[in-house]
């Protein structure tokens, strides 16, 4: 789960990190009021869960409260990579002497959280890694011990030669690590970590991504979810316990299991179609899940054909068949449907489908070809 910059900063501020004053606004009037309270030049920053908002015009300097209002007016409602900006952070503008990057990612290879720090901050760290890898220090942390003081100092000294700044940075490392662990992150970063002309360190931008698996035991973190910043169909799917990701294609896919779902999408593409979504109905699917899945998929106007691909293991294929029948009785389909079912209770499922006027096959390859043909208006290959 992504949280907004302003939320990440609130967490870090709560741990004592040096975050410039700032508040979130949903209207331009609020933005103006916040700028007045701050009483100094501010930056108005779009709060959206995508990168590159600066290039998209979603981050603007404002010298006066009136200017802050104008900027907020321009940014609120703006579309950035398909998402509408609903909130802006209005925060004190920082004087910048130098910018560093500080991040923690949960690293698969070392199976540990890994600190990445670089004195070349303010830009995309992947770019730094590609062009000047010697400017990055990577330091894996053993979570059984936590971030040790000597490690925090080592990271600090990699950024600054000066003892006072290295110490200040090492404190921020500890705060970021604490935030990472307490919130159950898979990523946490401060970019840029700024040194002001006066020599003080401040965290000018903050980002945290939460491991979805942590949310059950961290209700306070889970409560930070901002559904207004997400694709509505994905919100709907999550609330129905479905794993759904919207894409731009024309073949709606309903599959059980993430690997098979991806393989199905890939096969759609292989045969010249384009998947409209990723959708995993999960292991122990019941008919209601199938009903929700069909509702979500049929709501997408791009979808020209629907493809079911179910390999029954724990999933009972008759449950799925019943779900299809129920859903289509309630809301008759306006696009063609191709059903592939095999495995547990396959015969019962086929019978249910046939009795209700559906045809179904047990061959994945064949089903995908047919769905693509239907979606693209051609004939089944």
């Amino acid at each position, binding site marked *: 789960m992504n949280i907004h910059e302003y939320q990440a900063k609130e967490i870090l501020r709560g741990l004592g990190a040096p975050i410039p004053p700032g508040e979130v606004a949903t209207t331009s009037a609020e933005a103006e009021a916040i700028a007045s309270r701050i009483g100094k030049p501010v930056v108005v920053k779009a709060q959206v869960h995508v990168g590159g908002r600066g290039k998209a015009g979603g981050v603007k300097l404002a010298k006066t409260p009136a200017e802050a209002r104008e900027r907020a007016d321009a940014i609120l409602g703006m579309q950035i990579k398909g998402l509408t900006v609903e909130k802006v952070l209005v925060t004190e503008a920082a004087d910048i002497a130098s910018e560093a990057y500080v991040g923690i990612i949960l690293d698969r290879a070392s199976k540990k959280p890994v600190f990445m720090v670089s004195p070349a901050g303010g830009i995309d760290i992947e770019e730094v890694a590609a062009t000047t890898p010697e400017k990055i220090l990577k330091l894996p942390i053993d979570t059984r011990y936590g971030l040790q003081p000597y490690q925090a100092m080592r990271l600090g000294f990699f950024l600054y030669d000066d003892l006072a700044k290295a110490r200040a940075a090492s404190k921020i490392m500890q705060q970021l690590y604490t935030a990472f662990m307490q919130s159950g992150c898979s990523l946490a970063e401060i970019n840029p970590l700024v040194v002001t002309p006066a020599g003080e360190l401040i965290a000018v931008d903050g980002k945290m991504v939460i491991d979805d698996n942590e949310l059950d035991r961290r209700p306070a973190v889970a409560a930070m979810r901002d559904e207004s910043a997400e694709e509505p169909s994905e919100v709907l799917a999550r609330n129905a316990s479905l794993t759904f990701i919207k894409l731009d294609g024309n073949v709606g896919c309903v599959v*059980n*299991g993430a690997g098979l*779902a991806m393989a199905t999408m890939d096969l759609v593409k292989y045969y010249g179609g384009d998947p409209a979504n990723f959708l995993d109905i999960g292991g122990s699917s019941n008919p209601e899940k199938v009903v929700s899945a069909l509702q979500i998929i049929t709501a997408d106007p791009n979808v020209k054909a629907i493809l079911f691909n179910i390999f029954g293991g724990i999933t009972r294929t008759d449950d799925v068949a019943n779900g299809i029948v129920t859903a289509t009785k309630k809301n008759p389909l306006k696009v063609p449907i191709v059903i592939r079912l095999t495995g547990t209770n396959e015969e019962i499922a086929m019978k249910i489908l046939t009795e209700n006027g559906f045809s179904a096959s047990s061959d994945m390859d064949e089903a995908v070809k047919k769905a693509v043909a239907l979606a693209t208006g051609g004939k089944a290959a």
Partner: protein
Amino acid sequence: MSIFIGKDTTLVVQGITGRDGSFHSKQMIEYGTRVVAGVTPGKGGQTFEGTVPIFNTVADAVASSGANTSVIYVPPMYAADAIIEAADAGIQFIVAITEGVPVLDMTRVYAFVKDKGARLLGPNCPGLISPGESKVGIIPGSICAPGPVGVVSRSGTLTYEIVYQLTRAGIGQTTCVGIGGDPINGTNFIDALAAFEADPATRAVCMMGEIGGTDEQEAAQFVKDHMTKPVVGFIAGQTAPPGRRMGHAGAIISGSAGTAAEKIQAFEDAGIGVARRPIDFVDLIKARLR
């Protein structure tokens, strides 16, 4: 022959009286797996299905039954504790089926299991099956058949799909191993490949990877450097958008890293036969078994 489990496997089921645990314990017993004990705190002294003794702790279960393998069906928030308990009790092979285990938990669990010299499979995996010998986990026994092919995969149903097609084509398996879809797991491709290479009964290996991480790239290098047996590979997620978690917690393209294209390239560079479609496994493997 087989890898990781076989006729000598004696199994303790952690969470044997739960919904999933009881269902799959019955399936495993039916398949012929030697389920020698179950664990559910507070139900120590009872029996499961009238035959399998239940204990309060894994330590008690191991002391009494001598189980060498454990399978875990407990809710995600208790899974880390269950894995550590199994390793601490001396279990040498631990299979964690549970999906949704917090990844940070796994950083500690991985270190603990490694220190104990035990092997963990999973979490968030379907387990494994050595057709005709033993089944630990949830892979349907009906789709498998004994034979010369090792199967290792990051996914569940995709594995079933391919194993099913192999079986239908008359190609049986030594062992089918699901390593799971989480970013931090106990057993990776290399571990399974090395075991298949060492297993005299395995003559070829099917490997099903997906987007996210670099496990497949490292596996490809391993195949190139250390394997004499032919390998056929597949990567799911060519159409996945970057930055999105595709169901599996580990199936995510981070920045520009972990794409299907780079993994397929690594397979090709290592001389691994690449299945473009799931169905391609059948012909590719057939050609390599000749």
